[in-house]
């Protein structure tokens, strides 16, 4: 590869007069269309002018500066970076799937609506819910949608005083952020030393001002909230609803269903448990399920099956409104449905169990060198609080960067906030024992080197495409576009 030649910004490869496209030369009867000059832009936008092969080399070269699940082990906690099966991708590109306009008549998209409805029903079965919507675009968007359903439920009962949402201190950051966007005040619930919700603290905060409690189960420390029956009872006795953040659904596939645990509303991250690719940040999908009695509050539009077996798009009776222009990230649903169809009930259950086995195996293989604040058994993930021996000052950040040098993606770091040096590790079920063993070996070697030669770890990474980018400088004087870069005196 010649990174010097092709890796600059695409703007820097530009030469006036080049092009990467060939457009139709249709002659339309109207001839050129002229619009009033005051409605047109003053000058052409500054876009690159490159040939197609230059563009392809540019992005192909820059892709090799990236690390994905297909590159290697990606134990990013709470993100469920499992393998994304290729056959699922192949189901999207065909005519009849990728070339449908969302405004087409229901008659002309019965297959697309069948995909929606089938996936809704399968997710309802897996979640133990009565009904699903696929409209939300991502997990956080699902949380927001779920909270708006909860809000609508309380308002429909004339219960306007429920302004609070309870969130455990171990929760994903999106939980309180979503509740705030839905207009709720956030009250934090304490965790016990074993990472699970403190039932006494929860009870003291439950009253008629509480709309919902948001939980993940297993939670972000990887622990199953074993008091969930008591929690559900207390929440419901107070007239509040229980929300399930489905980010951690993977390990309980085939074991337990959120609906059976007493959850009223849930979302599922299809890009986690159901293997659709993360795409460097998206597109994901965050379908939302509700228990019986809450179906009428789902967002519009909604796909239903008519008595004659055909499919239609309608609006739930007491919908809180719309969260998307159309019906969500359709192509992502095709992939998730393909995953469920190829896995089947036994395959999904095996995925959950092997994800849990993989996590416990790493945990037990490293707990002599890394501080394990919660003994487990864990489920899909677990948290180390840095090295056991912190005498040489090697931090979680140093460990993460040392892993990059050794060909592994780093775990999630400094989350959950319960521990100062959190290293949150989620291996998923798609990894072989050999991969786990090589990761364990690398983690052990890092722990040993952090005592024998701590500077070697503190100065990592050494072998990555870039090292120690100046993040503080980037935030202090932000350079966010090529134009700003050209005007910068320091870059």
């Amino acid at each position, binding site marked *: 590869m010649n990174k010097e030649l092709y890796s600059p910004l695409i703007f820097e490869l530009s030469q006036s007069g080049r092009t990467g496209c060939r457009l139709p030369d249709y002659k339309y009867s*109207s001839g050129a269309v002229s619009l009033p000059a005051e409605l047109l832009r003053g000058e052409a936008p500054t876009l690159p*002018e490159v040939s197609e092969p230059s*563009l392809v080399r540019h992005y192909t070269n820059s892709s090799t500066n990236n690390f994905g699940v297909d590159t290697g082990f990606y134990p990013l906690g709470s993100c469920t970076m499992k393998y994304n099966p290729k056959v699922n991708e192949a189901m999207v590109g065909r005519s009849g799937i990728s070339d449908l306009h*969302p405004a087409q008549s229901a008659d002309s998209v019965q297959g697309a609506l069948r995909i929606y409805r089938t996936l809704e029903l399968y997710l309802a079965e897996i979640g133990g819910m009565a009904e699903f919507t696929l409209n939300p*675009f991502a997990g956080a968007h699902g949380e927001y949608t779920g909270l708006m359903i909860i809000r609508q439920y309380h308002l429909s009962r004339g219960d306007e005083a429920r302004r609070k949402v309870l969130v455990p201190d171990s929760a994903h950051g999106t939980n309180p952020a979503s509740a705030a966007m839905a207009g709720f005040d956030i009250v934090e619930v304490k965790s016990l030393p074993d990472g699970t919700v403190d039932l006494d603290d929860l009870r003291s905060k439950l009253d008629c001002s509480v709309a919902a409690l948001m939980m993940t189960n297993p939670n972000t420390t990887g622990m199953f909230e074993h008091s969930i029956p008591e929690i559900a009872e207390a929440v419901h006795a107070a007239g509040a609803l229980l929300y399930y953040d489905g980010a951690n659904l993977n390990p309980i596939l085939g074991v337990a269903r959120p609906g059976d645990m007493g959850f009223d509303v849930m979302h599922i991250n299809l890009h986690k448990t159901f293997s659709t690719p993360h795409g460097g940040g998206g597109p994901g999908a965050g379908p939302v399920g509700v228990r019986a009695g809450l179906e009428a509050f789902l967002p519009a539009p909604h796909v239903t099956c008519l008595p004659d077996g055909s499919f239609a798009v309608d609006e739930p009776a007491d919908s*809180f409104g719309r969260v998307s222009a159309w019906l969500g990230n359709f192509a992502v649903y095709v992939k998730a449905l393909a995953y469920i169809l190829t896995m089947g009930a036994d395959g999904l259950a095996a*995925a959950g169990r092997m994800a849990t086995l993989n996590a416990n195996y790493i945990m037990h293989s490293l707990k002599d060198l890394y501080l394990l604040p919660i003994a487990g058994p864990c489920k899909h993930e677990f948290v180390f609080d840095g090295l056991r021996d912190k005498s040489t000052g090697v931090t979680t950040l140093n460990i993460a960067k040392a892993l990059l040098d050794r060909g592994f993606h780093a775990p999630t770091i400094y989350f959950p906030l319960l521990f100062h040096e959190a290293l949150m590790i989620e291996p998923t079920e798609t990894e072989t*024992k050999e991969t786990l063993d090589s990761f364990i070996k690398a983690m052990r070697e890092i722990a040993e080197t952090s005592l024998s030669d701590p500077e070697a770890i503190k100065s990592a990474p050494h072998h990555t495409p*870039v090292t120690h980018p100046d993040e503080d400088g980037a935030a202090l004087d932000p350079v*966010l576009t090529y134009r700003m870069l050209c005007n910068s005196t320091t870059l």
Partner: protein
Amino acid sequence: MAANPYIPHTEADIKAMLGTCGATSVDELYADVPPSLRMKSAYKLPAPMNEPELDRYFAAIARENKPLICFAGNGFYHHYTPAAITAVMSRSEFLTAYTPYQPEISQGTLQYIFEYQSMMCALTGLDVSNASMYDGATATAEAMLMAVSAAKKRRRVLISATVAQAVAEVCSTYASGAGIILEVIPEEDGCTCRTSFEEMLGAGDVAGVIVASPNRFGIIEDYSGFAERCHSAKALFIMNCHASPLGVLRTPAEWGADIACGEAQSLGMPLNYGGPGLGYLCCTKALMRKLPGRVVGATTDSQGRRAFVLTLQAREQHIRRQKATSNICSNQGIMTLHAAMYLGLMGAKGLRRVNELSAEAAHSLAEVLTATGKAKLSYPDKPYLNEFSLDIAEPLSADRWLAALEANGILGGVKIDDSTVLVAATEMCSPQDIDRYVATVKDLQP
């Protein structure tokens, strides 16, 4: 264990790993799940399919759908997807990565987001772009939240009746959650009523004003004076614009907008029955720290090399939790790579040509359709680019119009009401496609 191509554990692996865990069975690892909660039977799902079966399943479903020659828009447009984009998008180094939290091994993702941000700023004329929102509607709702956040105490936001209905409805949802009073500026002859705008703004307490260009009828409105009036009332001026027409139309920055937002699917993204598209959000530098979502910045590494990182993260949910500018975490990710490659391949000239072809196709269609006497332009005096609103003459109706075209393999537009259809054209509509549309209409019996 049954053989599964994605789960590699052999019996020997499981046994050895359980030994390390001090357990004798996988069930022991679930001992903390109360028995009352355990599933008594397996999920009721079909037996697992192998790859050929899966392929046949989706092939059959695809046959239940009817792809049509597309003359519909309303936010989603059928432009061509260059093959190079599809090929590069499948690079799994891009596709199977997640949020670039570790910049040292994410320069590929970070660099294309930086390029995308640069291109969206070039299109809108504004200073700063984030790394995407879910769709044009949620991007506009987030722009509304930015305005209210920037205005501190003011809670009113005005939205023109000429903003697309779905966009307005999503804004209404977000407003109700956030306690924002969203008021609709009435429409007058297809455009935002200027008198009402002045009056409603004059009533005070307005944090922002949202308008669209092209608007929900395809009309390119004249917004001269709007930004000045907004700014003198200390309100932000927010423009919802489809991305592709920005290649030719007066930019949000030239109109004086503080925020530009909208749907970028028109940058050659497949229709995919409405998703994934791409929401974009750009703003002035003054509003930079109010932006929701990921933002990538340039910096240098310890060896003086250029490097890209996620920046301004103090705005985001994983740091600020309920005080974040938004809850957004996963966004439309790799669709920004699609946009960057499309704009890279097209360049300014190609993008202009796409818009010229689309406009010519639309204007040609409008001319011949109105000549049939069976329909007329809803707003004949208003300028439009590649989308127009058509009044269907009685006794025909929008339903009959669209049904006849569908029977002939054409998606004739989007129904607005019983007698109105919104029609769009792109460079994908050949003169022959236009002839076919018109021939179908000519055959329509009153």
